[in-house]
């Protein structure tokens, strides 16, 4: 059957009107684009939060780029993003695959795994701070020599403690995503593989992993872009310290803006953070392959 141009128009007319996107667009403009423009504007000013805003040109940008603390914050951020990903991705993938099964004991375990998801970051940070206290915490309390360490006061150790606490809090979330992804895989694929004599590892590598491709991209994007924004947990747990050891970019931005009252430099840092987040998000989408924009839904 041939489709005439008038038929085509009729098909298009039955689709949803572009105006339906208007409310969302308005919200996006008001709550994302306008503040973003404001931050870019503020980065060219000097403002202490109280007095009038004065245009200063590139002064804040020069301050930010010449301050060694900025470089350090970038490095700390990169380390936290990298290590959080390395630690969280495999654990949540395996846990997700494991909890996707239907046995009863797995359901009970899954509930336990997901408990940290229910706690606020501030509560998690306060709890770990108390547990890791070198004088009153878990180590001295239980008299376990290995646990008696200055976990949060040792500049070499503290970053890994932070990564561990982040993983403790967010692995359940990503496990949930993977669990959902695994449950979407048709069991017929596994049945066919079993008939062909494939073992569990083979099934995991040849069926589960390829089928989870889009889940992996989604989870990784959330993990990486999310770890760029870690703030509350680290703010309460270490305050960025000792020294600058855990002062990652968002925290550095906050402290510059609200402790040192240099809103200009803080805005410049905010812009840098946005550019990096954007870059990483796009990069991850690209790594997902050329056909990343293709939908898996039939007919769409």
């Amino acid at each position, binding site marked *: 059957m041939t489709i005439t141009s008038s038929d085509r128009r009729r098909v298009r007319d039955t689709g949803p009107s572009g105006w339906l996107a208007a409310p969302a667009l308005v919200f996006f403009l008001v709550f994302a684009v306008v503040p973003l423009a404001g931050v870019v504007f503020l980065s060219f000013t000097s403002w202490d939060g109280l007095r009038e805003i004065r245009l200063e040109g590139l002064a804040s940008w020069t301050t930010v780029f010449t301050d060694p603390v900025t470089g350090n914050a970038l490095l700390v951020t990169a380390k936290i993003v990298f290590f959080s990903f390395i630690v969280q991705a495999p654990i949540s993938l395996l846990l997700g695959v494991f909890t996707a099964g239907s046995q009863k004991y797995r359901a009970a375990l899954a509930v336990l795994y997901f408990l940290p998801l229910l706690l606020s970051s501030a509560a998690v940070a306060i709890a770990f701070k108390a547990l890791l206290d070198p004088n009153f915490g878990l180590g001295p309390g239980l008299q376990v020599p290995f646990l008696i360490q200055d976990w949060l006061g040792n500049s070499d150790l503290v970053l890994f403690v932070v990564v561990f606490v982040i993983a403790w809090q967010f692995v359940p979330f990503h496990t949930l995503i993977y669990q959902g992804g695994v449950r979407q895989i048709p069991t017929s694929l596994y049945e066919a593989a079993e008939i062909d004599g494939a073992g569990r590892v083979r099934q995991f590598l040849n069926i589960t992993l390829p089928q989870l491709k889009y889940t992996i991209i989604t989870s990784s994007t959330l993990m990486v872009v999310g770890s760029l924004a870690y703030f509350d947990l680290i703010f309460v747990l270490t305050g960025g310290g000792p020294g600058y050891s855990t002062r990652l970019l968002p925290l550095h931005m906050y402290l510059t803006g609200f402790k040192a009252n240099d809103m200009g430099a803080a805005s410049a840092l905010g812009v840098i953070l946005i550019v990096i987040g954007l870059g990483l998000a796009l990069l991850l989408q690209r790594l997902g392959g050329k056909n990343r*924009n293709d939908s898996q839904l039939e007919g769409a």
Partner: protein
Amino acid sequence: MTTRKLRSVAMAISAATLSVSLAACGSSGPAGSTAAGDGSASMWGLTGGNQPVLQKSVEAWNSAHSDQSIKLDFFANDAYKTKVRTAVGAGEGPTFIYGWGGGVLKSYVDAGQVEDLSAFVKENPDVKDRYLPSVLKNGEIDGKTYALPNNNVQPVVLYYNKEVFDKVGAQPPKTWDELMALVPKFKEAGVAPFSLGGQSKWPDLMWLEYLVERIGGPEVFANIAADKPNAWSDPAVTEALTKIQQLVDAGGFVNGFSSIAADSNADQALLYTGKAAMVLQGGWIYQGMKKDAGSFVTGGKLGFTTFPTVEGGKGDPANVVGNPSNFWSISAKATDEQKKAALNYVKDGMFTDADTDALIASGAVPVVNGIDSKLEASPDKDFLTFVYGLAKKAPSFTLSWDQALSPAQGDAMLSNLDQIFLKKITPEQFVATMNATIGK
């Protein structure tokens, strides 16, 4: 731009803005419940020792003056300092602005955010006569009154655990050399010589303040506060920083000091549990320990003394550093009705006999005249008369440096001092960095 790209932008923006919005939620307590509204004045106080006293004072005022009621909220120290400035800058600040005087107060005055109270003080001589004059001065900028003292005098004091000292057979140090000699003694006995809330950074500052004071006298910091070029280069600063690093090297501070937060009172807890022998802290922690470790304080196990002298130092050993008091400023953005209620409270509701008695009973020395007999009659008279005498007799009472300097300088100083305690930078690097902040 495609939808997908837009979505990525949105994701990135929300990532960035998230941190800011979380910060706003994190500081707890109701936000922006002020400026407009039912016309009642709003007041933000600090949690801690003086919280119940202030609460009772305001409750008493509200029940007697329902037409001029005050709405009171409390915040933790560090959270408050961040929140109030942001709120005032956004025009959402409270009617009563709690402060410390000094450079931070000056930044509010320069921005036109607080009322000039000079005329009010002139019209109400009773208010002015109420205070110790040396304390009142800290609320003045360029000869005008912008803030009035609202609680107790808080010099920094060297506290020690008498039980631990007896066990080791030691005496509280009178000189820096004696202090250094005590360090190995306590370490051998398995006790940390000094407790320190290093994560909060400001407790580190007390060491620098007193050492510079003892070595070089009050002029050294007066020059810094006056923004004189290269004022940080004074040899007294370098020597004080060197002494701090020597004490760190000797193991003078408790294990893990850089992860201990003073806001949660963990540093005091180390002292009264006997895990640390001494702590250099403000006069305000006496109230906290009295509440949290009653038998330690009432049983006479808490000792207190002045900061040791340094051999060859120029400073008068009677000089003190700390907070002369906290202050109320009145927001210039408040409505006339709110301002009127606020000034009436300052005149008649604050430092009533009940307030003064409650302050003394909590273990604090109110900044008011003629309370000697009341202090003598208190069960805490040893500490209270010690603090009162310290404040009254001090030839110089230097305001805590982080409050005396402009906020930008104060923050840079605390960050760099943290690096000194961690031995990440040398005293020379500290001096160079701080000289570069002068005038900022």
